[in-house]
């Protein structure tokens, strides 16, 4: 998956789960209140399952999950796709 596909998969999941009508790549998921305590672990589980990555203790940074684009960047970094992450 490239960055665009990852973003789309994340957007689909968040919109479906949280009934959000529209969501930009850089919208702040935390400040907007989209990510509550239940959805935080659901989003983490989705990322782990969908993109075959493990969210480890050292990955627990708000910056990694602040927006769709930030989360896509995290997935790419975890998969070692540094070049794509820099797109």
């Amino acid at each position: 998956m490239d960055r665009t596909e990852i973003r789309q998969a994340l957007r689909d999941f968040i919109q479906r789960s949280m009934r959000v009508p529209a969501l930009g790549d850089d919208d702040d998921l935390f400040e907007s209140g989209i990510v509550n305590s239940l959805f935080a672990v659901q989003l983490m589980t989705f990322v782990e399952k969908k993109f075959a990555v493990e969210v480890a203790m050292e990955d627990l940074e708000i910056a990694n999950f602040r927006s769709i684009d930030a989360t896509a960047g995290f997935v790419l970094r975890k998969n070692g796709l540094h070049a794509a992450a820099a797109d």
Partner: protein
Amino acid sequence: MQQLLTELHQARHEEFKAFAAANVAPAAAEWDRDQRLPREVLAALGERGYLGATIAPEYGGRGWDTVTFGLLSEALGRGSAAFTGVLTVQSMVAMALHKWGSAAQKNQWLPRLASGAALGAIALTEPTGGSDLQAMTTVFRHADGSLRINGIKRWISCAQFADVFLVFGKLDAQPAACLVPREQISIEPIHDLMGFRAAGLAELVFRDAEVPAANLVGKPGFALSHMAPVALQYGRLSTAWSAMGLLRGCFEESVAYAAGRKIDGLGMIRALIARMGTDLKAGALLCHAACRAQDERLPEAFETALMAKYFASRAAVRAASDAVQIRGASGCHGSSPVSRYYRDAKIMEIIEGTTQVHEDILGRLFVG
């Protein structure tokens, strides 16, 4: 539900039920009366590998799937809900460590938790508020490479016999969690609960309790958003299945009682038993779906576990109330197991999040 289980699931469930029938059910009334669990029966849980049911084999655990863990909780719950609390709490601590513990913490504690050499407890609830976790007042403070802990936790299951506690508090105003050995805590047993009387509840007082800073689990700031939900997920699944075991007890006791009675009101009894039997099947399907979702690591695993615990605990309360009603005066006496089921079932509506907390979370999920 049998058709949803593999042959291995079914065989293990039979093994668990045989263990509970031989080692748990016969002594459950005595444990309830004495308000304690004998060390030897806790050791038997460890020897069988049951305390390491969900812990990975690399740490000495069984590494069973969540469905098998659920079936174990169900079988033990049929014998004693209070006793099943040990499995519930052990799994909560172990799985939180599994996900968020450091390599050193996993290597130190998971093999001991798996074998039963160490028993764990989870310290979340405080005297001033159980459901509002954000308001907790227990404080962690850095001090020369150590952490100093001050605060009070109350209603902590298994605290009377636990060796290590996963304690939640705030570090620099951020939610955090750390491992605290028993020796650092002043532990005051709580007696005379209406149910779960053998579950070893206690109040914990931390007065400048000191642990190495390396005992912090996960990162400060994420203890309530990411760590507690992992622990509570296993707590809810185990409690839901344990409630189904208790419900099965109500059903079996009531069917046996009705079969031995020749009374005019049998029709009314049938109606109550019909509801129990239906709840038994519906609850088992929901619990199974929640465990399958967990095994498949689906995001909806969390909400399905909430639904399973919400449904099963309420159904258990209804069934236990009806089981007492069916027996009449004899059901109100301590010599009848259904009186214990009734008292224990009510506790299941409160632990791992009250019914109202579940309704709030699920309601927000459905309607925003």
